[in-house]
């Protein structure tokens, strides 16, 4: 069995709602985290991301100036001087399947639907710490491998070609979002 040494991890929380930031900070400190930085909008979050170089970003979707989705896209710039690989956990009240797909396509690593729970948050953090996925770079995407299922029958336009690796079997982001509570 594995445990996470939270006191060695640096977190950045991005949420415009002060109550939700307090909840997240309480949960992370209870897990054992010491370094938890907070931003109330996407622009401040991006600045803090460059300055503090967090290990894990927890971002709300809906935020002023630019939202969590845009923040993810700005972090996932392969040529940036910062770290484009940091795990991003998208925390959101949006609960439709299409939102999960959009978040995935922005380079989000994990999706956690509100209402938030200690267990759901811990599991997402454990996932990104213990089971990081390879990154994929295409003309239109840079981020964690979005494939979580093997479908040899799929021949659509989004299929990658020239493949030699088998796909890692993992539950889909949508299934994980459904089991977040």
């Amino acid at each position, binding site marked *: *069995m*594995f*445990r*996470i*040494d*939270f006191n*060695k*991890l*640096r977190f950045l929380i991005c949420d*415009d*709602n002060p*109550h*939700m930031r*307090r*909840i997240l900070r*309480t*949960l992370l*400190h*209870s*897990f*054992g985290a010491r370094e938890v930085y907070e931003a109330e909008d996407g622009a401040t979050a991006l600045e803090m991301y460059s300055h503090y*170089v967090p*290990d894990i970003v927890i971002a709300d979707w*809906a935020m002023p100036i630019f939202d969590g989705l845009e923040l993810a896209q700005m972090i996932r710039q392969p040529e940036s001087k910062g*770290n484009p*690989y*940091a*795990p991003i956990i998208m925390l*959101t*009240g949006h*609960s*439709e*399947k*299409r939102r*999960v797909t959009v978040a995935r396509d922005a380079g989000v690593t994990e999706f956690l*639907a*509100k*209402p938030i729970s200690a*267990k759901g*948050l*811990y599991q997402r953090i454990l996932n990104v*710490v*213990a089971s*990081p996925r*390879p*990154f*994929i*770079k*295409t*003309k239109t995407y840079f981020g964690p*491998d979005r494939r979580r299922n093997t479908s040899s029958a799929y021949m659509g336009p989004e299929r*990658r*070609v*020239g*493949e*030699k*690796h088998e796909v890692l079997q993992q539950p889909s982001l949508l299934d994980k979002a*459904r089991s*977040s*509570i």
Partner: protein
Amino acid sequence: MAKNSAKDIEVTAFATHQIITQPNPLRKVLRRVEEKDMDDPIGRAEQALADLSGEFKGWMTTEVNRLSAAYVAIRHEGFSKDRRDELFHATHDIKGDAATFGYPAAAGVAESLCRVIEHAPDLEKVPAELFTHHINAILAIVHENTKLDSISVSAELSRRLRKVADDYLAQVNRDRPEHLEVILAPSIVPAE
């Protein structure tokens, strides 16, 4: 700790994409422990949330006051992008936070109102009662939540408002299949 150096990053190129692998930069924070290890970080966090719960009523009151103010502004001055966004964000925050704060029925009503704001083709044409019934329901649920006999009433109120809102949205979006598909799609959040 968060970033590997460039020499650790391995890039495999294919015709349409690259696969980028690197040693797990966070592996050092993983620690193997005995199965009988008694540390319970999740339990500790749940207890910390419980300790915080005395503040939830006040936080929820702040959230519903913000929602009321957002709608009052619309009643007085009509919809603008900023006023619509403030109404949506206030509602959306309640949708996301209320269950954590102990008001799951209020979260359900807020979700229903979010759908109206997101999917009604013209907010000016939405009957005012649809907004006021949702907002008054959220206010009532938050103010009456301490009464045990009101819990089932709150849940029933939430269900009925959702039905009314969904019927309205299905009607006004009958010629907009992309919205209808989203409206009818199941939520990814498990039911209570």
